[in-house]
């Protein structure tokens, strides 16, 4: 990892390479949203907005004032809808998730367990924002990609068992951190990639979860878009 690039940007750049042209994808708020900035040339996604439309477009030049009809994303911020988009009610929007109609979702994480459990919606007594759409997304998307920094001030986050309230059981497909990429195969966690300059020993030391090392282990390559 280069000195200048933040861990968040590095993670977003790696996840950008997980997505294929034409995929229908939901990007969570925060780090996951950054992924859209780093898609390689020729990769066009249809982004799902859980508040009720497909094909999120850029922020419009003239944003209608609060109180006038306007299009907003799931974070409540003004955006537009691309020409191939469509709008619908919440029931259809979440049917798209649970019904397996999204190729992938990218979610932030607080903890991930070795069996693919994810905790990302609350820290009891500290921060209780609510699960919003995260549980439905994680249950239903074909591929659940978690974007998460490897540790939190030295505290391990990739665990044998999550100790924070779960978002979903055994549904994580891919976990990308600034040090490693793990894939989950039949409930088993496999290290497939390491970040440049990071050893398997270092990854083991910072990971409580049990994992195997892929026989195809390789150095992580990230999207160069905009570099």
């Amino acid at each position, binding site marked *: 990892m280069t000195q200048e690039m933040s861990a968040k940007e590095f993670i977003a750049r790696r996840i950008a390479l997980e997505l294929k042209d034409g995929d229908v994808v939901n990007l969570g708020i925060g780090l996951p949203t950054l992924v859209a900035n780093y898609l390689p040339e020729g990769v066009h996604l249809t982004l799902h907005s859980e508040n009720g439309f497909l094909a999120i477009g850029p922020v419009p030049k003239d944003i209608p004032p609060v109180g006038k009809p306007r299009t907003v994303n799931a974070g409540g911020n003004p955006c537009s809808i691309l020409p191939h988009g469509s709008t619908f009610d919440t029931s259809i929007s979440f049917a798209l998730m649970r019904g397996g109609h999204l190729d992938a979702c990218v979610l932030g994480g607080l903890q991930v367990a070795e069996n693919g459990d994810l905790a990302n919606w609350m820290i009891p007594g500290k921060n209780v*924002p609510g699960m919003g759409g995260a549980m439905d997304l994680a*249950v239903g998307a074909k591929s659940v990609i978690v974007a998460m920094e490897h540790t939190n001030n030295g505290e391990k986050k990739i665990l044998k068992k999550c100790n924070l309230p779960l978002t979903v059981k055994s549904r994580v497909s891919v976990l990308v951190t600034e040090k490693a990429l793990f894939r989950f195969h039949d409930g088993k966690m496999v290290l497939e990639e390491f970040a440049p300059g990071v050893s398997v020993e270092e990854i083991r030391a910072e990971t409580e979860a049990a994992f195997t090392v892929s026989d195809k282990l390789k150095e992580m390559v990230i999207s160069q878009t905009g570099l």
Partner: protein
Amino acid sequence: MKSKRLGIEQVASFLRDGMTIMYGGFMGNGTPPRLMQAILDSGVKDLTMIGDDTAFLDASRGPEGVGLLVRNKRIKKLITCHIGLNKEAQRQMIAGEMEIELIPIGTLAERIRAAGSGLGGVLTPTGVGTSVGEARQDITINGKKFDQKQTININGRDFLLELPLTAELALLEAVKADTFGNLVYYRSMRNHNPLMALAAQTVIVEAHEVVEVGTIDPDHVMTPGILIDHIVYPA
């Protein structure tokens, strides 16, 4: 046909302390602002409110939505999915001043749809193995009482049985209504509004524009007018 037009000053006659009200909207986008103000002005309190979230506390970012009633402490219980962008809602929950039941958005939508569709409940995989599945939900199945959500296994997969969610009143926002109550929503403002139109005893819509019947093509109607009891016209 009897007019559905309702003056904003008449809304108070539908309100009373302790009642249950659904409100449309997602981050305040699609929450009827004048109807929220009418609740505040009426002085009613101890409300149970059902809706997606508590919107923004910072009015420069977006509509305050139901946050107006949170800030003025009119709500006893809130059934919702996300309060993360409203610090006052979080504060009241942690201080125990307002009871908040957090449920997944897809589950909220389907519980409302179930109530409005004559279904006895819905089976969803969302929340299985999480605290959502442990929540209290009194229920009797074949004479046997349960005090937790039931997990039902169908062909090897677990689902939670989620019960219908209804209300005495639903408050909607539409960009266009005809005088019969046929509604059109704008873009992301549709969200829970059409589902709530099915699920409450009385449904009031705040419309940005009201047109004569026949103006909206039947193929373009998003909520059938038979579901709408009263229309508040633009100011």
